């Protein structure tokens, strides 16, 4: 190799490294930016409906002041699942910009049962993966729970129920058309 060829290889490498830093860094930056609650509620659909309802629940207001933000429950943490979810989210952009079918509170309410069922189904399929990022059966002290909760949690472990089987509507209001009195895990009406 002549010194000129050496120089050329070196500069190609250098450009590659710099481009790599910019592109990969930028990709990660964008990924992190779109994974914040501020980003989620920058659309009024999210701000006026799910976020509004979240604020009354224990995942927003509680004794200790620890709270969950939208992506804590709705975006998987593992890289591959996260990317899949991010790609699916382009569908939400379609509904925001083109279909405009949830752009008022009334339209959102009318569609809520369908939307909720999607989330319940996804959580059931992943064995409530996002819940378990924070809530872990191994770390639960059943002695500190109310006896009823402790009994039901032990039953859930034995029978393999997942969080969402019982804990529906804990972070947002339940949709119209869903009757909590008819739904119990293991029952014939078990949804999702």
């Amino acid at each position, binding site marked *: 190799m002549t010194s000129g060829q050496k120089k050329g290889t070196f500069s190609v490498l250098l450009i590659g490294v710099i481009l790599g830093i910019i592109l990969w860094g930028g990709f990660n930056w964008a990924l992190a930016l779109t994974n914040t609650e501020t980003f989620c509620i920058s659309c009024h659909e999210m701000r006026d409906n799910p976020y509004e309802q979240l604020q009354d629940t*224990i995942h927003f207001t509680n004794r200790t002041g620890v709270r969950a933000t939208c992506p804590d429950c709705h975006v998987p943490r593992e890289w591959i699942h996260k990317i899949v979810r991010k790609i699916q989210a382009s569908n939400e952009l379609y509904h925001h910009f083109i279909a405009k079918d949830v752009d008022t509170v009334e339209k959102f309410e009318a569609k809520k049962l369908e939307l909720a069922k999607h989330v319940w189904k996804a959580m059931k399929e992943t064995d409530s993966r996002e819940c378990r990022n924070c809530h872990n059966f191994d770390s639960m002290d059943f002695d500190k729970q*109310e*006896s*009823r909760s402790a009994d*039901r949690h032990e039953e859930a472990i034995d029978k393999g129920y997942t969080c969402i089987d019982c804990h529906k*509507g*804990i972070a947002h*209001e*339940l*949709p*119209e*058309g*869903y*009757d*909590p*009195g*008819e*739904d*119990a895990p293991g*029952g014939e*009406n078990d949804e999702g």
Partner: protein
Amino acid sequence: MKKIVQITIVAFGLLLIIGSTASAKESVASLRGTADIEGASLKVTKKKVISQEGGFERNYKQQPPLIPHKIEKYKITLKNNGCLKCHSKKNHKKEKAPMVGESHFLSRDGKKLEKVSTRRYFCNQCHAPQLDANPLVKNEFEGVK
């Protein structure tokens, strides 16, 4: 002369009435205590909701049973009723919870309904959770035994 005497008597009478109401005002203490009307009310001490397994005894016949647990997580809206998650016909056995009373399935005209009647839908209109608090006014009430 007669007129002057009349006027004096009426004036004295009025003074007496005004005086007595003024002193009455001072001696009456409401639940608010002696706190100044214009001032801020006394700070309310925070109380916890009582959880009691097996529920509370009724105080009189046909009293709506008191709620022996916290209810903040269960919402009753026009769309759905969170209490029914455990107290419905279908789930109560599994949840070991008392079922909504049979009377709650009757319409105004006594017709039996599939679901809880709308006039019985808002549970906490009659059923209330209990706080760990002393009665504001001492009393000797005893419930039915």
